[in-house]
């Protein structure tokens, strides 16, 4: 396996599949060989636009004919676990788009099956390999900020974007039937930017959700505080403020910093060296120098063609593929994927607790009573067309995923 390009398959040709196929194409040592969707027209458009040689509407057929080494799962969330389990049992390694699964129970099942089959699973925490985030981690590791005591993480969600509008307009959209609804579909990004520094298994949590948009009948805002033994975190998920941010602030015992993943800029917060009124001159001067440095860096990256929105995703793919290659000649248990199996379960478990607390506090105000709706949606007894994939796991494929 180490001598040849990995053969990559993808199941679920919705919106996020575009990003996956673009980045697989850029990734070193891998070729997208097949796409699959229960709707042949969706498989067709993905294959045509990204030059993928094979397209399928049956997962079994894709496994049999394309023989992928790795399959990316980009289907609706409620299909992630059963699909991943099927793929792992078929002997392929699996990359799962975030959020990993509907809940932590499913996450544990997937990991158990992966370990039983000696296969790797990677969850799509792609911002962890974003170049600016990697730089932040290097700065933290250098000790420049001292010990990190607190992390603020912000995600602005464009509820009026094409996907958000579609969710708002569709009472039966699968996103609205998740225990954490629209928020669950996206909140893992700002959350794992906190849990990267907050390593407690079960931090204490205070969370609530609400909506500021009268026309939207489900929560679009989340405020959550996490308290670990050494580090605390606060998470802001908002759909009403602009610009739509992907910002994280770190507060250390020596200094702080703010990283904006959208603009690929890092700003430091440091104590001044000069007293009194001089400090008021020193601060803007330092910011000016910092801005000049950031501009120079961005111009250089632009010229070199390094400013890709999904650069972190590409790097995460490459890192995971490297783990897959290692797993072909080493004991799988000794291979450490870029996002560990334990971390995938831990983040999912924290999300479960956040949503439970929100539901408990908000009563019926939530996604059609949240968990109840989710249970109904995911019940194998249901027999709507929308759930056909749940009833026939062999053909689990899906559509329309952010």
């Amino acid at each position, binding site marked *: 396996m180490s001598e040849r390009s990995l053969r990559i398959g993808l199941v679920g040709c919705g919106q996020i599949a575009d990003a996956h196929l*673009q980045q697989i194409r850029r990734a070193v040592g891998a070729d997208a060989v097949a796409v699959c969707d229960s709707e042949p*027209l969706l498989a067709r458009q993905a294959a045509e636009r990204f030059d993928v040689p094979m397209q399928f509407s049956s997962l079994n057929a894709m496994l049999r004919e394309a023989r992928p080494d790795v399959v990316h799962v980009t289907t609706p969330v409620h299909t992630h676990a059963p699909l991943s389990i099927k793929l792992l049992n078929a002997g392929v390694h699996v990359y799962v788009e975030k959020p990993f699964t509907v809940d932590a129970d499913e996450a544990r099942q997937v990991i158990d099956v992966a370990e039983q089959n000696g296969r790797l699973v990677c969850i799509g925490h792609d911002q962890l390999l974003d170049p600016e985030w990697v730089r932040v981690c290097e700065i933290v590791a250098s000790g420049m900020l001292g010990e990190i005591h607190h992390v603020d993480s912000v995600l602005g969600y464009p509820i009026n974007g*094409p996907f958000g509008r579609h969710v708002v307009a*569709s009472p039966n959209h699968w996103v609205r039937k998740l225990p954490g609804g629209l928020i669950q579909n996206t909140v893992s990004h700002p959350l794992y930017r906190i849990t990267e520094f907050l390593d407690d298994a079960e931090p204490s949590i205070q969370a609530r959700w609400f909506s500021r948009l009268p026309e939207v009948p489900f929560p679009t805002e989340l405020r959550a505080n996490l308290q670990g033994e050494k580090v605390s975190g606060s998470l802001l998920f908002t759909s009403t403020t602009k610009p739509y941010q992907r910002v994280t602030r770190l507060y250390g015992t020596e200094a702080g910093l703010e990283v904006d993943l959208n603009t690929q800029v890092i700003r430091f917060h440091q104590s001044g060296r000069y007293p009194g009124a001089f400090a008021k001159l020193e601060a803007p001067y330092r910011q000016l120098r910092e801005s000049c440095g950031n501009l120079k860096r961005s111009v250089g990256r632009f010229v070199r*063609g390094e400013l890709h929105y999904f650069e972190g995703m590409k790097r995460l793919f490459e890192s995971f593929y490297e783990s897959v290659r290692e797993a072909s000649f080493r004991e799988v248990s000794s291979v450490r994927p870029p996002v560990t199996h334990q971390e995938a379960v831990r983040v999912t478990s924290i999300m479960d607790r956040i949503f439970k607390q929100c539901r408990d506090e908000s009563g019926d105000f939530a996604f059609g009573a949240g968990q109840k709706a989710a249970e109904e949606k995911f019940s194998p007894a249901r027999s709507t067309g929308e759930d056909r994939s749940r009833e026939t796991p062999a053909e689990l494929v899906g559509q329309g995923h952010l």
Partner: protein
Amino acid sequence: MKVLLTGATGFLGKRVLRELLSRDIEVRCAVRESSRLDCIDDIRTELGCQIEVVSVDLATEDGCHEAVSGCEVVYHLAASLDGCTSSLFQNSVVPTRELVRVASESGVRRFILVSSLGVYGPQKLPRNAIVDESCPVDEAPHLRDAYTYSKAVQEDVAWQTARENDLSLVVVRPGVIFGDERGILSHRVGLPFGGRMLRMGGRQRIPLTYVENCASGVVLAGLAAGVDGQVFNLIDDALPNGREMIRRYRRSGRQLRVIGIPQFAIPLLSWLNEKYSDWTEGQIPKVLSRHRTDAMWKPLRYSNEKAKRLLGWQPSIDIDTAITRTLSFSG
């Protein structure tokens, strides 16, 4: 005669609805559950006639059956205009395939699909060639923008499904539809960039059709005899060019900052865009790929003779009046 109309709450659909009702045709409107029905209510009140409305999901067989049953003619206008490609396919292409199939099973006499002039592939045509219904469709529509790609596949799927199921299909391909709430400036004139418009060329004719003219053409496609299996361009007469459009826009008192890209520079820009995009692995997408720019901004002439001859269509509101009306409403 009873007809099914999809997309009745849309920009073109509400004019088609009004036109059908004015001809005393019984109409059933198939709408999404989330659709706002104000415009249908307004038309019902204004014309004092019955309009049947069904809320259905046209991507499902049951939804299509409920919509189609008892209708002789289907006018299929519903389509998404924006969003990613997969979303456009889910909302436009998949429902079209289902609706054509179910219509054939339900005894529908004729199915009218509103496609787009964008589905043509004029890349190989010489400059100033005439684009009529014999012009080939784009062989590589996936290299175009998401909307055009979805319309090309929608039409392809409709033809294929109609042939397989022996359904009479008529396709109309309107140009850029303008009118009241949609304004007169489209991407055929130029592209928005940082608060300015990049005017692309400027002397090539813009294939426009005023929404009310277009609506009458769509309706005639369902009524005219002997046009089964035909395609019709719906484009107004005396088309203006991009410069004239911008002049009219500014003359109405509106501000517009324009950067003119001359026609001869478009191929060079396209080449640079493609090379840079390839070199940077897509840091900037291929917005101006040669395949797209040739289809969008090459100087061409557009024919509406077939619609006039076989449908008896006339764009009754001349282009000057249509632009004036549009600019007096919004812009």
